[in-house]
């Protein structure tokens, strides 16, 4: 691993890391906070048979949705897939395997994977199909389900700002799954909108410490997609 974590292009940041049949975690909620530039590198690389771990399969033509369109995905581990029609077709046709998780179970499995916790008990999903085939145990009078920690070969994250040490800051709800995923893979590559020198951040404000980031690349202000544009009318000028 190069001592210099900063790479000049998304292609260079992922060079040597991509191969067929690998498991990739990708941050984001819907298409908010997705590592869009790094996903495009996977698309262009043509690697196939991928297992993706992500809350959602992107949207049609956006984010991970591009990898489904290009038939590079064998399996998706997610919590919700309702907003991508093309993905739905592939799923119904049996072309993509899907493992649905409760969203909190998915987040905690990733957190646990990154923290060296191989399994944990949770009340979530007890008595439902989620518990089928899994060990269960009663604690404090309630049934709990044993869930496994989750790790990947590669984690892709999107951050608002990063420094050359790999310390990351996020912006609003674009944070979502990115910080836990950064901890839970053999290799983590971060795309940041703005790259700054070490020492630029107040250390008290850093969300992802650089130990979790192997490589990073600045991608600038990218054109971000909004899935549900909802607004309210402005008050009349006289009232304002």
């Amino acid at each position: 691993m190069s001592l210099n974590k900063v790479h000049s292009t998304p292609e260079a940041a992922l060079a040597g890391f991509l191969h067929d049949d690998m498991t990739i975690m990708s941050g984001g909620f819907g298409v908010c906070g997705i590592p869009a530039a790094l996903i495009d590198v996977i698309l262009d690389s043509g690697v196939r048979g991928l297992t993706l771990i992500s809350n959602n399969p992107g949207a049609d033509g956006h984010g991970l949705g591009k990898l489904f369109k290009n038939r590079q995905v064998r399996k998706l581990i997610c919590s919700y897939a309702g907003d991508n029609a093309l993905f739905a077709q592939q799923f119904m046709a049996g072309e993509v395997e899907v493992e649905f998780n409760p969203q909190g179970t998915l987040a905690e499995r990733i957190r646990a994977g990154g923290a060296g916790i191989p399994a944990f008990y949770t009340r979530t999903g007890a008595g439902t199909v989620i518990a089928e085939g899994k060990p269960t145990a009663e604690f404090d009078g309630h049934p709990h389900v044993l869930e496994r920690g989750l790790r990947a070969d590669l984690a892709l994250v999107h951050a608002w700002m990063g420094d050359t040490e790999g310390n990351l800051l996020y912006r609003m709800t674009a944070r979502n799954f990115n910080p836990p995923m950064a901890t839970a893979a053999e290799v983590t590559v971060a795309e940041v909108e703005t790259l700054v020198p070490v020492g630029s951040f107040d250390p008290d404000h850093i969300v992802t410490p650089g130990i979790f980031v192997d490589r990073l690349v600045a991608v600038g202000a990218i054109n971000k997609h909004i899935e549900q544009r909802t607004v309210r009318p402005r008050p009349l000028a006289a009232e304002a």
Partner: protein
Amino acid sequence: MPWTRQEMAARAAEELRDGFYVNLGIGIPTLVANCVPPGMRVQFQSENGMLGMGPFPYEGEEDADLINAGKQTITSLPSTSYFDSASSFGMIRGGHIQLAILGALQVSARGDLANWSVPGKMIKGIGGAMDLVAGVRRVIVLMEHISKGEIKIVEQCSLPLTGVEVVNKIITDLCVFEVGPGGLVLTELAPGVTEDEIRSKTGTPFATQLH
């Protein structure tokens, strides 16, 4: 006359208490945010990583980095905080959220909830519903009493479950049920709605303690 969606949301808002942290589901529950009594401090959680959800933005002020769990653009408040998905569900699963108001496909007499999939239809996924019902202190279902003639309040759910014995109260366009240890208790009727009408539109026996 049945309650309108707005009236249902207003009835659900009577369950809010000063200082509550609350998670609202998609659909009619979302309307509850507009019914907080003046002077009451309630913080709404969005499980994608935000406490203190503000209203929709003015046109032209939408920000792709600021969305709710329904992926709609929203705004922040002075009290807002942001956090990652694992922390967000730590709040939910750790019992720190006092109240969740959710929609349902079916609710059973003992408070089982089914709200995520219908056999034969495309499974969209689970999202945060199973975590919410497992971890939030009090769960209220807010829904139409029946859907296209189908009875939704049943003896036993036939649809895949979201959680077992998790619902505390059911508010519909026709009435309010408490879910008690012995089953459902009818506590309120919408104006002009009779107990007989409720009986004909409910798939399980219930006790009546109107107040």
